[in-house]
């Protein structure tokens, strides 16, 4: 049997996803041993897991280093990797929002300045509204951009809204809901079709059970 390579996003989401894979019969005891190792293999269940930065999962899968992986919808929308998006795992739910100061008034006379980590998503969103914008690409602490007058609004991920609130910002518009997706490499999907299809079905059943018990 060929090994199934699975890229897991490091962090809390990754732990939850791993539990799902384990429930779907793809356990790998070595992964719970701790330490700094990043790659774990289990011959018995035919899987090789590796922990990667969440925003890199799609790259590993697109380039075939991983057959499947779990990535946020935000990353998939932003980078449009050429992969199959097989399943919405319903984990890591949040939303991509436009946020601004509480007293923000949109003046369509002016070019809107938008600070974001997700320039592609922001551009597409405002293009749909036929709106000219000035994108300010930042890599972190997006929330302070409107406060310092760097931008008029921000486009960012909002989970609970606490960070926004603490910085006197408020969500103005939801661009898209976000959750974790099971993705697959297109060639890998063909060559390991049975394994991937079976695993997808098991994961889907787990998702549905999860929804029922909520």
């Amino acid at each position, binding site marked *: 049997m060929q090994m199934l390579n699975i890229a897991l996003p490091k962090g809390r989401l990754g732990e939850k996803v791993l539990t799902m894979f384990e429930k779907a019969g793809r356990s790998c005891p070595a992964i719970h041993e701790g330490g700094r190792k990043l790659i774990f293999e289990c011959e018995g269940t035919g899987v090789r897991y590796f922990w990667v930065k969440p925003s890199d999962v799609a790259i590993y899968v697109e380039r075939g280093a991983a057959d499947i992986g779990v990535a946020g919808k935000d990353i998939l929308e932003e980078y449009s990797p050429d992969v199959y998006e097989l399943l919405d795992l319903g984990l890591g739910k949040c939303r991509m929002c436009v946020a601004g100061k509480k007293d923000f008034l949109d003046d369509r006379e002016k070019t809107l300045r938008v600070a974001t980590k997700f320039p592609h998503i922001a551009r597409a969103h405002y293009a749909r509204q036929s709106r000219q914008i000035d994108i300010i690409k930042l890599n972190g602490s997006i929330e302070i951009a409107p406060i310092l007058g760097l931008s008029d609004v921000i486009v960012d991920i909002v989970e609970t809204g606490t960070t926004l609130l603490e910085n006197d910002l408020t969500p103005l518009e939801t661009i898209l809901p976000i959750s974790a997706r099971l993705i697959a490499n297109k*060639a890998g999907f063909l060559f390991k079709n049975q394994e991937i299809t079976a695993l997808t079905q098991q994961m889907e059943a787990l998702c549905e059970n999860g929804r029922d018990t909520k």
Partner: protein
Amino acid sequence: MKNGEKDIFRSAAEAQQGLCELYRRCGYRHYKMSKFEEYDFYAKNKNFLVSGNVITFTDPDGRLMALKPDITLSIVKNARWQPGGAEKVYYTESVYRPEKDGGEFREITQTGLECVGDLSLYDTAEVLLLAVQSLEKISRDAILSLSHLGFLEGLLDEMKPDEPLRRQILRAVSQKNMPALRALCGKSGLAAADGDRLITLTGLCGSFPETEKELRVLNRNEKTDEAYRTLCAVYEALAAVGAAERLRIDFSLLNDMRYYNGIVFRGYINGIPQGVLAGGSYDRLLAEMGKPSANAIGFALYLDLLERLFPGETEDESVLLSADRDVPIGKVLKEAQTLREQGLRVRVQAVDDGSAAARKLRLTKEGMADADA
């Protein structure tokens, strides 16, 4: 007949040569083209190109020229055939373009073939067979995924989505994104049964016999029926020559429907994450280029992608021969020649500079000896 190890290419250069020979023996003529053409030609057909970005320069007459970003357009433009006949050509050329829009320019080596004219189903089957044979010469672990755009179009015709929704649906199909498809099909008054059919079609992945029953159920109208019958016919034709086991029916495979119609396919090699072969029939491009009622089908192989598949150069058979200055150079040439005749790769240097070699020899007036002896 299964491929033996010796029938498989060992390097990209060998692949290039072997593929051309394969196409030549099927009666395809070599198509050689200039590295550049007038930019205007590509600008007119910009949408057909992978990327609208083209490298341009001005020639001494002030005409804007372009380094060719594509081969197919040029072949179609120059194709001539007699009624009932076809122009069948193969090529191996470099194209210059970014891998995707906004990316950096790259020189990409393509080998492929095009068949343009009054085509029949035989020509489709022949091109598919050549695609399968090309892949089999690269690896024994190869798959040709096959789709017919008419089937998808037929089902979409039943649903009549507006243009933006249609685009979203096609994107979800290409990603096999069932949750998104379910959501999109549930939207804007599309009939549930139509949506279910589209979802079933997208989910199909298997050999033709495995998927044939489902396809028969999904067959709804004239378009889907034509697609179904074409798929049946090419499957049977390929099965007759033992080439059908490489085929996988997969409707998530989409080419631009403004140009492509009918059969589309992509070839995969186990171990290479992207498709190495891409092709399909593109009658609509011919119509756009003023050649309606003619047909065309072809494919290209991206030889650059095979780089990592072939073992790199090794030093197994290499010899470093260092010769003393007082040895007559004629003798050095002769000794080196003798070694080469034994099948070795021999590099001659005055001194051993420490570079890698499987064996190091030293030639002095007394004769040849191992260098470390």
